[in-house]
């Protein structure tokens, strides 16, 4: 880590330059599911750590010198921003390199960036969270928010899908969430007889719900094909597309809307997204080239 330490010395303690990372040490690594782990990061600059805040659904750019940057959603409680968590699935060069890091190693962090789950706008409404696989990670800060402000929301349902029981993210938190009058329904695509929960793809769980379309907001994150069918199921129940929110992922590079790598139709997902209403993206959602 000597190289990173020397680089760190040349970085101003607090910078307004959005392209400059701030160094954070890995305080803890928690294995979640096969190929997925949660990294607790601690900013080295105390002033920056104290000033740092984020909104549920936003992401950071995590940087490893000589390797590259990757956009990772923040998966921790926005009201305790100093306990900064990122749940990361190994997918490419940068995340493979992150997987090799140990507690105490340092990562460059730029952020937070992007739009947030509209938890304030949804106040007073019923909420349906629909997550698929690693998609529960960007939703978890919003779940923590509604738990902290439980009385301000109506009925809350979390539909959590995974490929198999072993791949179910944060399953050890489900009972704690249920204690806050939240219905948590996990489902897996495949299982043997030992699995006591649901089997079937997550959008199909809508068939067992009776949402009030006048008063329900949907937040969904997961594979894009899953979110498409979640939106269709919500629309079939007359929930307006303006109240169905998705979190989209594209090739985010600069994270500030300069480079255009993450352009999706007329929007830059790093800046106007990743959280968008289905009404905003509906014209482009089935265009193969996007």
């Amino acid at each position: 880590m000597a190289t990173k330490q020397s680089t760190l010395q040349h970085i101003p303690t607090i910078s307004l330059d959005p392209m400059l990372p701030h160094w954070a040490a890995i305080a803890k690594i928690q294995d979640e599911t096969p190929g997925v782990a949660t990294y607790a990061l601690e900013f080295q600059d105390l002033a920056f750590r104290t000033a740092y805040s984020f909104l549920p659904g936003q992401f950071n750019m995590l940087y490893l010198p000589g390797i590259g940057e990757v956009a990772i959603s923040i998966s921790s409680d926005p009201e305790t921003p100093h306990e900064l968590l990122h749940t990361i699935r190994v997918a490419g060069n940068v995340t493979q390199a992150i997987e090799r890091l140990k507690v105490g190693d340092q990562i460059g962090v730029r952020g937070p960036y992007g739009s947030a789950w509209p938890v304030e706008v949804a106040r007073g409404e019923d909420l349906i969270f629909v997550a698929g696989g690693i998609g529960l990670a960007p939703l978890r800060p919003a779940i923590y928010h509604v738990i902290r402000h439980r009385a301000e929301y109506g009925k809350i349902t979390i539909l959590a899908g995974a490929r198999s029981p072993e791949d179910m993210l944060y399953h050890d938190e489900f009972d704690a969430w249920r204690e806050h009058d939240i219905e948590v329904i996990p489902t897996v695509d495949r299982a043997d007889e030992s699995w006591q929960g649901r089997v079937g793809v997550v959008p199909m769980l809508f068939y067992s719900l009776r949402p009030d379309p006048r008063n329900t907001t949907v937040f969904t994150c997961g594979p894009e094909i899953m979110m498409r069918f979640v939106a269709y199921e919500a629309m079939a129940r007359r929930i307006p597309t303006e109240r169905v929110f998705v979190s989209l992922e594209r090739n985010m590079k600069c994270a500030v809307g300069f480079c255009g790598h993450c352009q999706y139709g007329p929007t830059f997902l790093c800046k106007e997204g990743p959280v968008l209403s289905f009404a905003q993206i509906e014209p482009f959602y089935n265009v193969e080239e996007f």
Partner: protein
Amino acid sequence: MVDNTLDELLRANPWFAALGEPQFEAMLEIASMATWPAGTLIFREGEPNQNIYLICEGHVALDISIPMRGRATILTLSDGDVFGWSAVLPIVNIKTASARATHDTRAIAFDGIAMQEACERDHELGYHVFRRLTNVVAARLTATRMQLLDMYATGLEGD
């Protein structure tokens, strides 16, 4: 579980809300209540088709036996869901999956042959029943497509 009469259960179910009184009576005539404690095998793969079920309360798992691998659960169903629909649309005249109650479950059972005959006698009823069944089959098809896509599969295309 709440003890409702069969008549009340049928009237409360969206499947029958649009039926006229004669069609409703025709359905009531071929319906019966079925209850199973958790763990009960409701029917076994390979058995002759007999009933179609509409779940009122509970959970049912559909399993398929795979030689040398054991049983795999392909789908679970709950309140409002239908299973055993091949009794009305018999592609093959045997059950193609096993069904077991994973929780205490209550359902309305309809004799499949009697339902087909009732639909033949009254095409208005037949239109209603088969429209509903088509929705069930379409939803299963969509779900199966998504399972086939293995949408959680991870590529190495990311960072």
